[in-house]
């Protein structure tokens, strides 16, 4: 076979298959709306996934399980400060991202200072962050300013702005990973911590930045999502726990670290959304939906050719 696909393209391919299957079932009229809706929801997964990717790429075992609660906490904090006022949107955004940044730093601090495996350290923090959110007014959904909601729903000439903006973010991530000094250093640290240290890279600083950026992306996602879904709610982040990891790995990033693929996250995120749409459209029983979801995930990782790491 002369045709060799890049590993990250399989997500797009399978997503395409599911999109076509959905259209075949429900008529061509649904093609554009289905895709458009999938793109919007994929955009949120991509924002969290991109952050998670940076952490996963920073070395084997690195992972952030606190993303859902950081997302929720940041959303609560920013909705509180904005208080529904359009004038406060920018401070709200800054606060959401700042909350995420602090959370990311705390995660990394626990990992280095207490020498905890990241999976445990971030899990423990996620409980603490969740408690903070409970105390920030968990009895109500905090409403976003109208301007924020309008931005998340904004479309120009029938094209939604939000996914396009997130695509810009993805392109930035691609550029930084390929050309950026920080990106190169991140991938070096991910491949071999000891070699990176001896090549003059400050391993701790690179990982700190990765975790911080991951927290910031969770904060950003929380900010946008509460604008889109009508407010900050305590359980708004729950679905992003496993999804943020799954889109990264299915997108072609290696869990062994040192290699990252930002574009692939889009393919995987579209795959997840279109798969849910397809299974819902086919009106399958819940059990069968789960079975097919699991089987498709395994199928994709199993058929994707993996680059051999040394």
């Amino acid at each position, binding site marked *: 076979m002369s045709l060799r696909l890049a590993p990250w393209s399989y997500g797009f391919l399978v997503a395409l298959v599911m999109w076509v299957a959905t259209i075949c079932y*429900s008529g061509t009229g649904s093609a554009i709306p289905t895709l458009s*809706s999938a793109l919007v929801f994929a955009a949120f997964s991509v924002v969290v996934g991109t952050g998670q990717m940076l952490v996963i790429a920073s070395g084997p075992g690195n992972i952030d399980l606190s993303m859902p609660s950081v997302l929720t906490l940041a959303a609560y904090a920013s909705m509180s400060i904005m208080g529904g006022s359009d004038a406060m949107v920018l401070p709200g955004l800054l606060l959401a991202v700042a909350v995420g940044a602090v959370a990311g730093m705390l995660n990394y601090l626990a990992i280095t200072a207490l020498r905890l495996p990241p999976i445990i350290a971030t899990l423990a923090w996620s409980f603490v962050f969740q408690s903070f959110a409970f105390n920030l007014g968990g*009895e109500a959904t905090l409403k976003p300013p109208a301007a924020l909601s309008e931005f998340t729903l904004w479309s120009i000439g029938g094209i939604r702005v939000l996914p396009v903006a997130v695509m810009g973010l993805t392109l930035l991530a691609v550029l930084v990973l390929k050309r950026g000094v920080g990106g190169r250093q991140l991938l070096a640290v991910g491949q071999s911590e000891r070699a990176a240290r001896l090549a003059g890279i400050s391993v701790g600083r690179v990982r700190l930045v990765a975790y911080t950026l991951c927290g910031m992306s969770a904060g950003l996602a929380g900010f946008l999502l509460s604008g889109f*879904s009508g407010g900050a709610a305590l359980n708004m982040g729950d679905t992003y726990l496993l999804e943020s990891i799954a889109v990264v790995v299915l997108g072609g990033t290696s869990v062994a670290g040192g290699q990252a693929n930002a574009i692939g996250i889009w393919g995987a995120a579209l795959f997840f959304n279109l798969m*849910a749409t397809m299974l*819902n459209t086919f009106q399958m029983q819940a059990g069968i939906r789960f079975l097919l979801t699991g089987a498709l995930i395994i199928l994709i990782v199993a058929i994707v050719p993996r680059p051999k790491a040394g």
Partner: protein
Amino acid sequence: AAEGTATGDTSGKKIAFSNSYAGNSFRQVMIKSFEAAAAKAKADGKIAGSAVVSSNNSVTEQASQIQNLILQGYDAIIVLAGSDTALNGSIKEACDAGITVVAFASGVTEPCAYVVDYNLDSYAKAELDFIASKLGDKPANILEIRGMAGDGFDKRLNEGVNKALAAHPSYKKVGEVYGQWTGTIAQKEVSGVLPSLPQIDGVLTQGGDGYGAAQAFKAAGRKLPIIIMGNRQDELALWKKEHDATGYETFSLGATPSVSQVAFWVAQQILAGKQVPKFVEVPLLQINQPDLDAWLKTVPEGGVVNAEYPQDLVATIIDANVAKAPLPMVPAPK
């Protein structure tokens, strides 16, 4: 059995609340309602103390927390069970230790426990009856938003829906998604499936999902169908806004978080010596168009419609259950 409030001395009794999950605002209000009732009861000398323990959506953790509450010597435990059956072992153990167990808002099957719950068949029937009152017998497409697959509440309510649908043969269920009682998820699932669906005339919900569904319809540029709301402030506000703009009409039905107060007083009344049936049905809180504005004023921004269940009202509910009389409705605020 004696009617009215039992007045046996319970001033030395302690009541604990084992909650399966605290991660959404409904549950947060529920906990606050319990704490408020318990604090007042303690001040009035009706109980000696109370405690709330939440597990993080983990049935096993809740089961072992119930075991701990047994050890701590509580006289009654009220339980919002994370599973209809998985707590049976622990609940049995509590009963055997002489503890009064009141399970509420969940279909706990252990016979030794008192159950305080809604009638989910009438929940579903009320939803469809309202739609029928608006659409009549014309053919209509229905979308059902369910909760979580494998959950007991979801299963029972879905059974109720299927029974109720059988009574309306002209209605067709054209779609079914799982919203997990979470606005963002309901929004995502409905948005995904909507493009492939024909025109939807009615949406059946389980609570916590109506606003997300409405957002999905609006984003898709579709006409808002009759979405049964679930007593959330944002749902009511949306309903009011649509009503003012287009004359949109629907109704809202759901559990009140303060059902924890009902369970609390049921437990207290049992300790006080009142004869209580093993199953106590609580009324659902229903909001109709005429009462919308009045209710909306009472709800905090972003919150859930709530109502106080004082001791005597709960005693009346128990008596109505015994007498198989209609339950006292929660009166609309003026």
